[in-house]
């Protein structure tokens, strides 16, 4: 049969089925995607030169003209200015510290839940709970910000109306949107709340891929539930955990703009706990039109982010050669 098809192929000649023709056709097929990548991924990569220039737009002239004819090369001046500014340290600390907490909780909680999930007797109850826990994942941060507002609004909010907490200083209800101590923890809660259902499903999918015979064998040897988890489930979850870990570490200088900017309603009083690099880049670019500083910050974020993801991959591969992302 296979011989026959080879023969037929040869008979038809190179014209219609030749491989170079196939190559061309496949190339044409994904040409639109290639153009998309060039415009929206690769062109911005060259756009990072803005960070090394003193960009000066001129009305009536195009962006490229302004960039090449009207903007001087300033070397590392933008970076120097950024690093020496008073908010740089806070911004860096906020981004990295939150991410470290998010990474730890983002692995610990979903893995625990995924393991516990399989132990519930009633499958119906388990499925219902899982569906409900998936809901926050499908909501945008804009919607979530209104959910939060319904609880925390100063005058009408549920929390203030329920507990009637009056600020002694002002004699009014407590203004939650100015309470940095509260938001420090609440941001962590919101992040866990929104991501819990989704990550749980990722780990549940890998748990369901584990060969059932392993558990049967363990059962015959009289392994307890805890021993099964410790010696079968967790070791076999390691590849998934390490991939999630690498991706999270690679994004350690990035933050969820929606969480830090939108969910906090961009409250000025909370800046000290919400100004991550992304929020800064956005504000500097679109609210203050400071292209130089925001491009410097964005450039640092990209380069350092790229290095951390490669570093995390090397590290994970050292521990477990099978577990790397690439």
């Amino acid at each position, binding site marked *: 049969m296979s011989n026959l098809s080879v023969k037929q192929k040869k008979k038809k000649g190179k014209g219609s089925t030749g491989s170079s023709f196939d190559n061309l056709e496949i190339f044409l097929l994904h040409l639109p995607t290639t153009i998309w990548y060039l415009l929206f991924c690769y062109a911005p990569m060259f756009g990072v030169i803005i960070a090394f220039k003193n960009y000066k737009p001129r009305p009536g002239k195009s962006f490229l003209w302004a960039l090449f004819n009207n903007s001087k090369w300033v070397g590392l001046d933008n970076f120097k200015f950024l690093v020496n500014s008073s908010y740089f340290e806070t911004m860096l600390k906020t981004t990295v510290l939150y991410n470290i907490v998010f990474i730890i909780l983002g692995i610990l909680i979903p893995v625990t839940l995924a393991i516990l999930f399989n132990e*519930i*007797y009633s499958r119906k109850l388990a499925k219902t*709970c899982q*569906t*409900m826990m998936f809901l926050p994942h499908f909501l945008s941060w804009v919607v979530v910000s209104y959910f939060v507002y319904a*609880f925390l609004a100063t005058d009408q909010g549920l929390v203030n*109306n329920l507990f009637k907490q009056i600020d002694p200083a002002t004699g009014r209800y407590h203004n939650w949107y100015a309470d940095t101590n509260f938001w420090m923890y609440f941001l962590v809660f919101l992040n866990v709340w929104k991501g819990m259902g989704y990550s749980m499903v990722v780990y549940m*999918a890998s748990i369901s891929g584990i060969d059932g015979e392993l558990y049967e064998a363990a059962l015959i040897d009289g392994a307890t539930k805890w021993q099964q988890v410790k010696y079968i489930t967790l070791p076999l979850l390691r590849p998934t955990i390490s991939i999630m870990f690498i991706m999270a570490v690679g994004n350690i200088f990035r933050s969820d703009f929606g969480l830090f900017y939108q969910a906090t309603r961009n409250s000025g009083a909370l800046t000290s706990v919400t100004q991550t690099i992304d929020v800064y880049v956005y504000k500097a670019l679109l609210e203050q039109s400071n292209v130089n500083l925001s491009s410097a910050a964005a450039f640092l974020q990209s380069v350092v982010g790229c290095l951390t993801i490669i570093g995390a991959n090397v590290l994970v591969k050292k521990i477990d050669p099978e577990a790397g992302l690439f």
Partner: protein
Amino acid sequence: MSENVKTKKKAEAKLKYTKVKPGTNVAISALFIFLALICLMPALLVLVVSLSSENSIRIKGYSYVPTELSLEAFRYLLHQSSYIGRAFLNSIGITIVGTLFGLITTSTMGFALSRPNYRLRKFFTWFIFIPMLFSGGLVASYMINAHILGLKDTYWAMIIPICCSSFYCIIMRTFFQTTVPDAIIESAKIDGARMIRIFVQIVLPISLPAIATIGLFLTFAYWNDWLMAKYYISGNKHDLFPLQYVLISLEENISFLSRNSQNMTPGTANSIPSETVRMAMVVVSVVPIACSYPFFQKYFVSGLTIGAVKG
């Protein structure tokens, strides 16, 4: 007799190891019910508030048990349908066109990368992988999209920049690799079909599960997207606003609505139920998602599982 006891003991022993103790089960179930409620209750509060009367909010604030129920907020939104309806239609249009674009770009690239004989396969695998590691950042993309490509204040700004992603391409590729046998493509080639025809008429129809999965990812992403509107749509271009962006600029929009309410009966314009209208708009944007995601959940899970296969 003794054998009977033995099997009984064995069964008991098996039960002991396969299932957790009843007490533990109750504890775990309680934990999950608690977590599920935490995820659901905020949505419920917003729904109840949107159905409360403005008076009730004035007395009790936002509450699960309002003093009085009323549909005035929704009635008001219906009166303003030229504005809210426009935003709703914008969201639907952007979602449909975006999902279509996204499916075309990701499936063609995924198909190319899945063909073992494709000569440029290695090159393009790196080509889509590099952007996952390094990106030009917001400023460079903003400058290019807004100033060179001229996307500012157009619908395209909310569609094109987010239509493709390497992650989706990789899911597509993995799916094509595992479920479209090479033999089918070879035999179609022998019958004289061109690659493009093979892709459209043979590969796509047998890959409907992958198309559905990525289509759903895209649909939800476009419906929920507000960032692109925030970046590229100016605050006075009300015609372009998608629903999510209307929610962001709600404070100013409620005053905008009251200024533009000539088509309403006099008197009502002064008494906009602003507190409840706010939440009613949130409900309008959430309902399509909340009603549909339980049915599509399994596609998400399958997409995640394919995506977890490393490249």
